[in-house]
């Protein structure tokens, strides 16, 4: 397992985030993300999951603490050359551009050599099963398909790390299960590192190798739990005893944190 690797891919140490309006979104967050992990940040809404994920992506600086990429090189401006794909909660597609152009956007913005863009875009679309929809416009797609486009766009630069902020929260359960399975299948093949934000206990247990449980006011980590079940996971795992036990453990962790919070 890649868990045994010594250097983490990303190390968050003593992170505190206070917004300009005085909201303390995160206090004392330590987190090592190891290469090849599928790690879930699980917690109630408002506990700073999105804020943490955005800071990992470089969208917003921490007020205190540090975010290091020990094994990455740094560019001329001193920024780590993080190869990150980000999937937002909303599909966040450009309505005026075709599916193809939406997925090609990272290339368009990055001034990379353009030779094989078309192949790479088609490849990414094939990965999410949308190769036949390259010429469609987002409004012609269903919610689940839009989310797939968004994932293809995040993958097109072949990032090392995939950051996902409640990507399936707005979808119906059937579509969500399907996308969960497809995402896992891709991850098993490609083995990027995934940081997956969710507020669903079941989703976190089903997907992850490790779950980091967070609580609000202020946002902090209240517990951590490895999910030792092997991949591929499927309906068998969803209905197994270990799965149920893990879900109960995680829920209890959340409950304990909530009980201590007078505002809930």
């Amino acid at each position: 397992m890649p868990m045994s690797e010594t250097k983490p891919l990303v190390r968050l140490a003593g992170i505190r985030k206070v917004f300009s309006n005085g909201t303390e979104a995160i206090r004392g967050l330590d987190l090592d993300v190891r290469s090849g992990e599928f790690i879930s940040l699980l917690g109630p809404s408002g506990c700073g999951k999105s804020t943490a994920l955005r800071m990992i992506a470089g969208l917003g600086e921490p007020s205190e603490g540090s975010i290091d990429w020990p094994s990455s090189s740094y560019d001329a401006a001193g920024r780590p050359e993080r190869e990150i794909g980000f999937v937002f909660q909303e599909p966040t597609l450009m309505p005026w551009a075709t599916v193809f152009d939406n997925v090609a956007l990272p290339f368009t913005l990055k001034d990379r050599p353009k030779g094989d863009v078309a192949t790479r875009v088609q490849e990414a679309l094939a990965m999410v099963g949308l190769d036949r929809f390259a010429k469609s416009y987002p409004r012609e797609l269903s919610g689940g398909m839009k989310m797939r486009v968004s994932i293809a766009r995040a993958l097109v630069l072949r990032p090392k790390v995939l950051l996902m902020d409640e990507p399936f929260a707005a979808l119906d359960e059937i579509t969500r299960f399907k996308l969960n399975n497809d995402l896992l299948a891709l991850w098993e093949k490609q083995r990027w590192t995934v940081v997956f934000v969710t507020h669903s206990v079941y989703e976190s247990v089903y997907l992850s190798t490790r779950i980091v449980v967070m609580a609000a006011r202020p946002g902090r980590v209240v517990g951590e739990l490895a999910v030792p079940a092997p991949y591929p996971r499927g309906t068998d795992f969803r209905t197994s005893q270990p799965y149920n036990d893990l879900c109960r453990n995680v829920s209890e962790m959340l409950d304990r944190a909530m009980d201590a919070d007078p505002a809930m």
Partner: protein
Amino acid sequence: MSSSGPEGPWARHSRYALPAGAGILFLAAWEWAVAAWNVPKFVLPAPSLIAAALINDGPSLMQSLWFTTKVTLGAFLSAVATGISLGVLFTLNRTLERTLWPYAVMLQVTPVVAIAPLVIIWVGFEKLWLALLILAWLVAFFPILSNTTIGLASADHGLKNLFELYGASRWKRFRYLQFPSALPYILGGVRVSGGLALIGAVVAEFVAGSGTATGLAWRIVESGNMLNIPRMFAALLMLSVFGIVLFYLTMWLQWALLHRWHESQVRREN
């Protein structure tokens, strides 16, 4: 309304046949009423008289129409160019926006009729067309400016984050995010502006009085003074046909640029 389907060919043709039929009926009633009640032709000429005026004065009226067209289109196109450019500049430079915005508003709220004499004196009677163009531009320019500024600021927050994530340059952010987001707003402004340019051109010519102005507006005033009401109607008719053409032109432009993706142009099949 879809081009095929359950509505069939009648529904399609009725789109043109209904208004055309109503128009013909109306003209016939008008012709009859004028004769029946003996209405003098300097009060309300019969449609046949107007048609005759349209034919007799056709060449000279066409010249006037050409003059008005040049002024209107000139003002309209400069309004589009300057409105969008200034809107972009305002978005790039907040200080510039804060500095100039009040003056743009001032130009907008001051009625053209009130500034017209001044502009005409400054530009000079020998270049009256230019004065008219400037006045029409003043009227047509503001909707494009304000819609451009609003549109450029309306880009989706999530997409802005995405562009930041991929380190998009200022130019690319403008080219691939802000401008396409603004396009529906800008085109809305363009449609309003087209109509305003024509109103501006006509009003300015009214105010200018005689001089070297030879546009349709002046022909209307002149025909009124000479109690040549059939010609007045003929000129009016030309003006409104021109206005309609302009209207459909801007509508077509909006459709051409937006129909692939924007909700305002999409016909949903439920």
